[in-house]
């Protein structure tokens, strides 16, 4: 009997945990909305957070984008050779970097760098009573800790991802002229062939939603953390896993609804 009931119980517990997390997440979102008006508390932290979340993420994003661009160019050439004109390498690198790989890969990488860092910092503050201390000193901890991070993430992810897209295209171009017997005019011709400014708007919008996701999920798991060092570890891991999953779901959702 236990063998039958155990999975049912497990499923029930997991469902309750998810419903409870969604409920707490919704409550935190409402509180964050309310805390927006406390500009005096989140305002001074916005620029430092934009630097920490955005500017400091640029090297990682550029590194990933550069190698993505190289691989894309080589693989496109490998696929097209003998069947499709090689200038289509420029089209594939540009289109793929802008629409998909720039935002998604960078978003996933930043869910590790930014999400984990936010979650562990806020979770440590929670378990060491620093959040209680903030409250006891008449601060609104959500305005102080959560709001500037979420705004900074929403504003800076598009900037970082735009740079990553540019780097990916430049890396693809350099690879094309260095390794693929493709001249610059051919690469540019391919790049311009299917270029649409709407794609850039789409990528930037999508990136902003990834920024909101990564910072909100990190803040949520950090803020609701319990249980000492183990809890901090759990909050960090969950942030990376959940924000990566949401990024992939959002990626598909925006593609289905906006393209």
């Amino acid at each position, binding site marked *: 009997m236990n063998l039958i009931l155990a999975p049912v119980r497990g499923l029930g517990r997991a469902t309750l945990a998810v419903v409870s997390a969604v409920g707490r997440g919704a409550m935190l979102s409402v509180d964050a909305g309310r805390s927006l008006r406390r500009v005096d508390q989140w305002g001074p932290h916005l620029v430092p957070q934009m630097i920490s979340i955005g500017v400091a993420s640029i090297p990682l994003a550029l590194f990933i984008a550069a190698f993505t661009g190289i691989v894309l160019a080589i693989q496109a050439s490998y696929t097209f050779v003998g069947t499709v004109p090689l200038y289509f390498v420029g089209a594939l690198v540009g289109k793929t970097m802008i629409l998909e790989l720039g935002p998604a890969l960078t978003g996933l990488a930043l869910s590790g760098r930014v999400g984990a860092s936010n979650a562990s910092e806020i979770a440590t503050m929670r378990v*060491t009573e*620093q959040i*209680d*201390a903030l*409250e*006891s*000193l*008449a601060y609104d901890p959500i305005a102080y800790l959560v709001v500037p991070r979420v705004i900074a993430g929403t504003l800076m992810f598009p900037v970082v991802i735009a740079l990553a897209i540019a780097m990916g295209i430049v890396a693809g171009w350099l690879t094309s002229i260095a390794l693929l017997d493709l001249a610059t005019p051919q690469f540019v011709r391919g790049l311009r062939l299917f270029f649409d400014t709407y794609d850039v708007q789409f990528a930037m919008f999508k990136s902003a939603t990834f920024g909101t996701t990564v910072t909100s999920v990190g803040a949520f798991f950090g803020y609701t953390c319990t249980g000492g060092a183990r809890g901090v570890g759990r909050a960090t891991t969950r942030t990376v896993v959940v924000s990566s999953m949401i990024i992939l779901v959002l990626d598909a959702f925006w593609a289905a609804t906006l393209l």
Partner: protein
Amino acid sequence: MSIELKDVHKAFGEKRVLRGFTLSVERGETVSVIGGSGQGKSTLLKHVNGLLKPDAGEVWVDGQRIDQLEGEPLYETRRKVGYVFQFAALFDSMTIAENVAMGLRRIPGLSEADIADRVRTALARVDLEGVDEQYPSELSGGMRKRAGLARAIALEPAYLLYDEPTTGLDPVTLSMVDELILRMSDRLGVTSVVITHDMESAYRISDRIVMLHEGRARVAGTPDEIRDSADPVVRAFVEGRADLLEEAS
């Protein structure tokens, strides 16, 4: 009455921590709350400045029902209540001076010079000069605790809540913290609630001592009444005798 908890109940999941706890603290009075580990002493203290809301019951501070306050009125009341955390809860990304200044920055009309002055005074009061620019990780446990105390008293609050202020301190520092608690009460008329395990300290600083046991105030009395209590649970705690507790149960 300046602090009053009326029939406060609080549970975390299945665990019922407070089960009808009642406490009244007069203005200027120092009340120590004693009790075994895990009895809910810190939980009850967090109700006093609204960090936790009771499941049932009322919490009154300075004429306000703090468990029903939200937003600005809650912050307004909290500015009158200093809180000394068990493990100091200093902000580890800030220097000691910045930590002590944090609460002061929420007081309207204080200039940077006023804040710096009050930070210096608060640190001097806890005998912690010359560490302004150091980070909490660079200080010893006792120094961190004193810095936490400085952060609370810098606000010049009408109420001070101490969560085990002397645990882990050396005898000299412990006596200094006791003196400071007494001074805050005698000279500045601060109303204090002190959570402690240290009976010598409780006898020295308290006007009254309350024992929290199984979620309720088991006994309340002056230090002498507690010292002479015939209640086996109180005697077990005061004398450090587990056998009395077994007899009582």
